[in-house]
């Protein structure tokens, strides 16, 4: 027993040393930059923007005193990453990787995040939109595509990831300029689109030149830029063929508004040095993109222009105006009303409230939650101009199934007597409250201070009383998680708003 006391003391000393180490460094460092600069990327590792950010971080080592560290925060087409940057201080240590897709993201989602909250400090590259086809189609020029479209009985099928995405807007632009009729089918992701193209399911895939890398069966018909790519000298541009389309996905970096000028100047300088580096040229050739460095003023001007254009094409795609509500389906409504009446009769005719079993309560809850979901489906918006299956179709199928099953469960459980005995859920409720408290406290005072308290409190609640073991467990766990997460996996656990 004595030994465990010594171990507990030892663990606590290490914990205090760790706290000192973690919190002592905060607030020091007067000249910018004094700590690593994070680059927030809105997509998963391996995506184009992620790849670019990692390349920048690698080359920047030569030119910057501090490291650039890439962090992925994917979700909601970039809104998660944007929101994350806005949540951080405007101190110049959080850089956001931006792409042209953010313009439509902000417009379509009508989110409270606005592009005006950011200062776009550097345009790095642009990646021309490309029309790609399976080589069995023998499309060698835009004229071939137009020819095929005019000869065919049915409209051509054009595919790509997303509705309202840059690729979709590029398709709309192309149809207008080439004066052809075609259908857009959204294959959700680039890999699924490319698979469909490999199967020759579609006429054209709208993507970027790098998509054909390593695939022998695919050809780029044309790219939408002013000049040809150095590493793909045989691929013609739209302009050469007499069509004036210049459409590309740019990538660059932005800060939250209000970052000190000193920081903006520093990072802009580093990024400029990166672009002038030989390795950068290699990277651009390797990934089939054009290097084009623009500073804040020019970049911002360009974005202003593009916002108007994006607005125009999103309108055309029917994604900004003229919605209709999905509205209730009459047949379903009748079915639901019938089921509802049946349900109400069941509840009130045969049962006293005190006799209702646990299963019946659950059945009733599922029934009412399903009804609530059904009401929500009638509010879904469908753009008038798009011909797609209704977004409410599948949810309604599940809802009807759940409604029927819950009625069945209600009837079924009346036959059997409920023999389960339930214990008092008091401790569970206390634990849940404790967890919610821990969650909020953690955001304010950080992981390292709150976690031992939470662990000690819940052990106490679960009636564990051997103090030395409790201390070893609580503080040892914090030290262990620091080593695993911070040191081995390079994930920073939150230090708390009060301290940063």
């Amino acid at each position: 027993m004595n030994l465990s006391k010594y171990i507990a003391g030892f663990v606590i000393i290490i914990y205090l040393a760790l706290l000192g180490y973690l919190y002592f460094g905060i607030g020091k460092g007067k000249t910018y930059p004094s700590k690593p600069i994070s680059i927030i990327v809105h997509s998963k590792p391996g995506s184009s923007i992620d790849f670019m950010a990692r390349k920048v971080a690698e080359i920047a080592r030569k030119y910057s005193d501090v490291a650039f560290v890439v962090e992925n925060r994917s979700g909601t087409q970039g809104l998660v990453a944007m929101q994350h940057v806005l949540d951080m201080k405007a101190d110049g240590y959080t850089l956001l990787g931006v792409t042209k897709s953010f313009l439509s993201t902000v417009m379509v989602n009508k989110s409270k995040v606005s592009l005006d909250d950011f200062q776009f400090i550097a345009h790095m590259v642009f990646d021309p939109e490309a029309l790609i086809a399976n080589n069995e189609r023998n499309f060698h020029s835009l004229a071939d595509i137009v020819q095929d479209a005019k000869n065919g009985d049915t409209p051509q099928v054009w595919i790509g990831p997303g509705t309202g995405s840059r690729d979709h807007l590029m398709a709309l632009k192309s149809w207008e300029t080439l004066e052809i009729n075609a259908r857009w089918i959204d294959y959700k992701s680039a890999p699924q689109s490319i698979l469909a193209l490999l199967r020759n399911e579609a006429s054209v895939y709208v993507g970027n030149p790098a998509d054909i890398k390593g695939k022998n069966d695919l050809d780029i018909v044309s790219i939408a830029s002013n000049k040809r790519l150095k590493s793909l000298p045989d691929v013609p541009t739209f302009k050469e063929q007499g069509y004036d389309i210049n459409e590309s996905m740019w990538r660059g970096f932005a800060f939250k508004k209000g970052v000190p000028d000193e920081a903006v100047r520093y990072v802009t300088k580093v990024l400029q040095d990166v672009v002038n580096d030989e390795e950068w040229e290699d990277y651009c050739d390797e990934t089939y993109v054009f290097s084009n460095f623009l500073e804040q003023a020019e970049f911002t001007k360009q974005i202003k222009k593009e916002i108007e254009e994006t607005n125009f094409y999103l309108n055309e795609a029917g994604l900004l105006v003229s919605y209709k509500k999905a509205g209730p389906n009459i047949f379903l409504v009748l079915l639901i009303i019938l089921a509802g009446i049946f349900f109400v009769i069941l509840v009130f005719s045969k049962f006293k409230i005190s006799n209702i079993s646990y299963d019946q309560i659950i059945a009733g809850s599922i029934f009412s939650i399903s009804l609530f979901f059904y009401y929500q489906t009638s509010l879904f918006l469908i753009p008038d101009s798009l011909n797609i299956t209704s977004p409410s179709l599948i949810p309604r199928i599940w809802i009807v199934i759940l409604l029927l099953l819950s009625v069945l469960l209600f009837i079924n459980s009346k036959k059997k007597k409920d023999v389960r005995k339930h214990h008092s859920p008091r401790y569970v409720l206390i634990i849940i409250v404790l967890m919610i408290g821990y969650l909020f406290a953690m955001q304010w005072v950080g992981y390292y201070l709150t976690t031992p308290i939470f662990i000690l409190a819940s052990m106490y609640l679960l009636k564990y009383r051997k103090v030395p073991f409790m201390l070893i467990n609580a503080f040892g766990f914090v030290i262990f998680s620091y080593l695993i997460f911070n040191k081995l996996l390079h994930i920073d656990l939150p230090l708390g708003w009060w301290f940063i």
Partner: protein
Amino acid sequence: MGILNDLWLGLQEFGHFLPILMMLIGVIVGIMVGVLPGLSPSIGVALMLPVTYGLDPISALVLLVSVYLSSNYGGSITAIAINTPGTPGAVATTFDGYELTKQGKPLYALMTSLTASTMGGIIGTIILILFSVPLAWLALSFESYEYFALGVFGLTIISSLAGKSPLKGFISSGIGLLLITIGFDTQLPFSRFSMGIPDLADGITFIPALIGLFALGEIFYSIEKGENLESRKAAKVDLSQSLPLKELLKLKYVMLKSSLIGTLVGCIPGAGGTIATFIAYDNAKNSSKHPEEFGKGSLEGVAAPEAANNGSVGGALVPLLTLGIPGSASTAVLIGALMIHKLNPGPQLFDKEPGLVYGIFISLFFANIFMFFVGLMGNRLWIKIIAAPKSLLYPIILALSFIGSYFIQNSVFDVGICIAFGILGWIMKRGDFPTAPVILGLILGKMIEENLRLSLLKGEWIDFFTRPGSLIIIILAMVSFFLPYIKKRISKVNIR
């Protein structure tokens, strides 16, 4: 023999100090990634990506592939020990693995899972080496119709998972299916059911939901039951037990079959190892001599999903290497790694860099074997942890679930999701509702809806039945759905 020559090239490429060291590190890191709830294989691989910048291509890829492989095994450890699947692929392992732990036989489950994982990994690698070209055809021939059919096939497995009350099983899966429709519509850039909550616009994050439903649900339930949590005896673990080789040998056909299922499903881009584990579990149950033991601590029920899960690793590399298309979240990161080292994934890779490709294959072999021995040593440690009093263990699991849910998107909301699903899991357990079908619904819901609607855009309803691929899968789905009931009927008749 071309293949032998290529393998020899690969061995020369792999057989150096640095690649071997990276394999050893990769396996150990991978197991840890698997054990920690919230760290899925793809996140683990992504976290190791920066480490590879300074390495030569073979060492870099060996490191990532080893992490990918062994994290798939690591997920089963916590699934067995504390009913918390460390990775989505380990959900099916909880059904019987945790049951065995509750019966005081965790070592049985851990050994079975380790052996099955190793077998699955090795068989997957062999298939990858020998048949990657024909399998690429399978990956390519899967269209939205087949994906939809596969999703439906996956759902039919509920009839084996439901246990005593099929009705409750169906309700559970319905809850999962409905909840996963929250978030972005599959065809339009609009959010459904998000009720104006910005954090809900992208839907429910899967991993926090998984952790909540299994880990928190179980903890809440056993706290409520007021079991004797503080005593060591309550855990009932016999530390001296060991698994006789004979028991493991009996599982060889299950392991072989499940590994094949894992590899085949694994090589379909976007389907993934998790679906494979459910299919393998269902198949093992339907063909077992003792289907009644499933869900009550059957060793077959542990072996099948684990073999399938690690078999899927070899499968997932097929579309990556032969078509240049990532089949899973982890292989998407691998493509990034290839590009960082200026290699083009795709058919040209085999011609240009046979030494590298076969070097990776060979490293997979050795990684499997090394994983087995690390696992053996690890099992001693896990057993001790399992034997610790629950009142010491539960607070730690709660804290781990917190970190696991939090750091995926640095989102407090995700931790809220985790707690909410914990409460849901608890409520369901109180009423004997099985929780696994909820997860099945969450996994398959998106796949079913996306591909149904894509298919209807491209064609008509009838196409599901006129295409041989989707027709076969739909028939399989029917069989798998009704088989358990037919079997029950037959056995009842026989008893009479």
